[in-house]
C-alpha cells in the first residue's frame, strides 16, 4: 500500500508542480537555516576526546587571595604546575603553556617562520593520544633533566623538510638548535579542549618543547596571563615565582578510586601551601573537571548558539504554518476524488495515510534541498565571516538529521489537512459533481 500511496503522491506533486515546489521551498528554507545553526552548535559542542573524555581531567586551584577573583580560574600558576607533577596518583599528567618561536633550519635559503608552540611534558602525547608519523615523544628523563629536543607536526614537517622523516635533524627555535625526536600525524582536536583559553577553535600547535626547558630558555607565554595582584615581573625568575596564572594542567585518572585519591592529594597540597603563606582563602579548594565538564565550564558552546538554534527552529515553524495553509488548499481541492475513493471502499485511515505519505515525500524533498541550502550557507559563512572551518563543515549526522527533521516537520504540518480531508463526508462531494 505504501508504494501505491507513494505513486499517488508523486502524481499529485507532478500535477501541481508550482504549488509543490512552493511547499518544498518553504520547508527547505526552514530546514536549511535550522541545519546551519544546528551544525555550528553541534560542531562546537562535539566532545573531541571521544571515549577518553571521562578519564582526562583539567585541574583548577583556588590560589588567589581574599577579596579577589570570586571563582576558580581556568589556569594555574607556574609554581603549582611545577609542584603538581610530584603527585604519584595520576596515570599521566602534564603542565603546559603556549609560546612561540622563530623557526629556522640549516638551510640558509629557508625563510624563518613564526610558529605557535606548546611547552609541556612527555605525557602530553599519551594523555591526548597524539598519533606519531615518525619517531615519538622525548624520554621521560627529559622532563626532569632538560634537553633540547622537539616534536613537530606533520604540517610543519612538510613545510620545512618536504615531508621526509626528519627525526634526528636539527631545527632552530629562536636560533637555538633542537633535535627533532618525533613528527606527529595531523592532529587537530576541535574544540582545542586542552587549552580553551587561547581560542577554543584554533588549530593545535605545530611545535612541542619540554616544560623542563622553560626556566633556562625563558619561554614567553603567548597565551592568556591573569594576575590577581600586583607583583614585580621584570625577570623570568620573578614570573616563575609569581602568583600569575598562565599554565594549564591535565591529569589522567582511570577509575573512581584514583579520582578520590587525587582529590585528597590536592587537598593535602593546598594545606601544605597554606603553611607557606599561599592559598590565603580559608576555603581554598581544588577542582578537577573531565573534558565534557571542562567544555561546559568554559562555555565553549556559547549561549548565543543556543538562541540561534531556537530562532531558526521558530523560523522553521513559520515555514511549516505556511505549508499547512498550502496543503489545506491543495487537499481540499481534491475532495471530490477522495469522495469517490471513500465511496468505493477506502477507509479514513487509508485516506489519511495516503496524504501523510504525500506530505512526507514533500518533506523529504524539502530536507534534501534544505541540506543543500545548509551546505551553501555554511560555505558562505566560512568564506565571508571567517568562522572556523571546524564549525562550518557539514557534519555527517546532518545527512540523516536534515531529511528526518524535514519529514517529521512536514508530517506535523500535514496532520490537520490530512485529517480534514479524510474526515469530510464523502457523500457531500459526490453530489456536487
Amino acid at each position, binding site marked *: *500500500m505504501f508504494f*501505491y500511496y507513494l505513486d499517488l503522491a508523486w*502524481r499529485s506533486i507532478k*500535477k501541481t508542480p508550482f504549488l509543490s515546489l512552493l511547499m518544498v521551498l518553504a520547508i527547505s528554507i526552514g530546514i536549511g537555516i535550522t541545519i546551519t545553526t544546528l551544525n555550528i552548535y553541534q560542531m562546537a559542542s562535539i566532545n573531541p576526546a571521544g571515549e577518553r573524555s571521562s578519564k582526562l581531567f583539567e585541574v583548577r586551584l583556588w590560589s588567589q587571595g581574599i577579596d579577589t577573583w570570586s571563582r576558580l580560574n581556568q589556569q594555574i600558576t607556574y609554581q603549582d604546575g611545577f609542584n603538581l607533577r610530584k603527585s604519584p596518583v595520576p596515570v599521566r599528567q602534564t603542565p603546559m603553556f603556549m609560546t612561540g618561536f622563530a623557526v629556522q633550519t640549516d638551510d640558509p635559503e629557508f625563510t624563518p617562520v613564526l610558529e605557535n608552540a606548546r611547552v609541556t611534558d612527555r605525557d602530553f602525547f599519551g594523555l591526548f593520544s597524539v598519533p606519531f608519523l615518525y619517531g615519538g615523544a622525548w624520554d621521560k628523563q627529559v622532563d626532569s633533566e632538560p634537553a633540547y629536543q622537539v616534536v613537530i607536526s606533520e604540517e610543519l614537517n612538510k613545510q620545512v623538510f618536504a615531508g621526509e622523516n626528519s627525526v634526528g635533524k636539527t631545527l632552530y627555535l629562536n636560533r637555538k638548535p633542537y633535535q627533532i625526536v618525533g613528527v606527529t600525524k595531523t592532529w587537530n582536536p576541535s574544540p582545542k579542549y586542552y587549552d580553551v583559553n587561547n581560542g577554543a577553535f584554533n588549530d593545535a600547535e605545530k611545535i612541542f618543547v619540554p616544560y623542563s626547558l622553560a626556566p633556562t630558555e625563558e619561554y614567553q607565554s603567548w597565551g592568556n596571563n591573569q594576575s590577581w595582584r600586583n607583583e614585580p615581573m621584570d625577570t623570568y625568575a620573578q614570573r616563575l615565582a609569581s602568583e600569575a596564572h598562565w599554565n594549564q594542567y591535565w591529569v589522567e585518572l582511570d577509575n573512581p578510586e584514583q579520582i578520590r585519591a587525587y582529590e585528597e592529594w590536592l587537598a593535602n597540597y593546598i594545606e601544605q601551601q597554606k603553611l607557606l603563606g599561599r592559598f590565603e582563602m580559608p576555603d581554598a579548594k581544588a577542582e578537577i573537571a573531565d573534558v565534557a565538564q571542562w567544555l561546559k565550564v568554559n562555555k565553549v558552546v556559547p549561549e548565543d548558539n543556543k538562541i540561534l538554534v531556537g530562532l531558526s527552529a521558530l523560523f522553521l515553524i513559520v515555514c511549516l504554518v505556511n505549508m499547512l495553509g498550502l496543503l489545506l488548499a491543495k487537499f481540499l481541492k481534491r475532495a*471530490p*476524488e477522495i*469522495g*469517490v*475513493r*471513500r*465511496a*468505493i*471502499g*477506502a*477507509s*479514513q*485511515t*487509508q485516506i489519511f495515510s495516503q496524504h501523510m505519505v504525500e506530505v512526507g515525500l514533500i518533506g523529504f524533498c524539502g530536507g534534501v534541498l534544505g541540506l543543500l541550502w545548509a551546505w551553501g550557507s555554511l560555505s558562505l559563512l566560512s568564506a565571508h565571516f571567517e568562522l572556523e572551518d571546524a564549525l562550518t563543515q557539514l557534519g555527517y549526522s546532518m545527512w540523516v538529521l536534515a531529511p528526518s527533521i524535514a519529514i517529521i516537520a512536514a508530517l506535523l504540518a500535514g496532520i490537520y489537512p490530512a485529517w480534514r480531508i479524510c474526515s469530510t*463526508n*464523502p*457523500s457531500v462531494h*459526490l*453530489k456536487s*459533481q
Partner: protein
Amino acid sequence: MLSMKNISKVFKTDLVETHALREFNLEVNEGEFVAVTGPSGSGKTTFLNIAGLLEGFTQGDYFLDGVNISNLSDNKSAAIRNEKIGFIFQGFNLIPDLNLAENVEVPLRYRGFNAKERKRRVQHALEQVGLAARMKHLPSQLSGGQQQRVAIARALAGEPRFLLADEPTGNLDSMMARQVMELLEEINKAGTTIIMVTHDPELARRAQRNIQIVDGQVCDFTMYQGGERTIEKPHLVTGSQEPSNQDKVAS
C-alpha cells in the same frame, strides 16, 4: 438482503432541519433489480447513500446481508463498501488523472489484492463493459456513455453483491442510456442485486420492481410484471409484501 426499518434521516443546519427520510421501510431481496423514482428532493440520493454506508442515519434499523449497520466503525463500513457494494454515480466520478485500468483498479487496491489478481480483475471488468482495448486511455478521452461504462466496470471489479446507481443515465442521451441499462440488466442477470435511482420512467419500467419515494417515504410500490425475469424469479412476488407500507401498495 437489505432491510431498512423506520429509518429516518434529519439534516440539521444552523437554520433548518430537513427530514430527508421519515419512517422509511424497505426490504430488498437478493438478485432483485429495483428502480427508485420520485420527485426531486424527495430523498432518493439520501436513501442510496445510507444504503451504501456513505452516510449515517438518525433513527431506525438497517441490516445489510445480516449485518447491523448502525454504529459500525469507519474501517468496517469501508470494508463492507469495498467488498459488497458497487457505486455508480450520475456524474461518473472517474478520477481524471488515472487511466481506465487504474480507475478500475482503485477499489482492488484498497481491498489488498496482489498485482496479478488486480490485473486479472481489471481486464475482466473492462471486457465486461467492452472497453478492454482502451485500458490506457484517460477518462477525458472517452464519451459520457463510455465513461459510465468504465464506472460500472470499476463497480464490478470487486465483484460486489450489491450495485447502487444514482441516476446512472442522467447525463447520457437515450441511446447511451439504453446501452448502460442493457449492461445493468446483464449484470443483474448474473446475480448482482441492483438498486437504481432514475427519473426516466421508461428505464424504470424495465426493472422488475419499482418503488417511489415521496417526501422521504416509500410511497408507491409497484411490481412491474412485464419483463420475463419475474417469471424466472418468482420469489420476488413474496418480496413485494412490504410490511409497514401495505396500505400504500398499488396493484
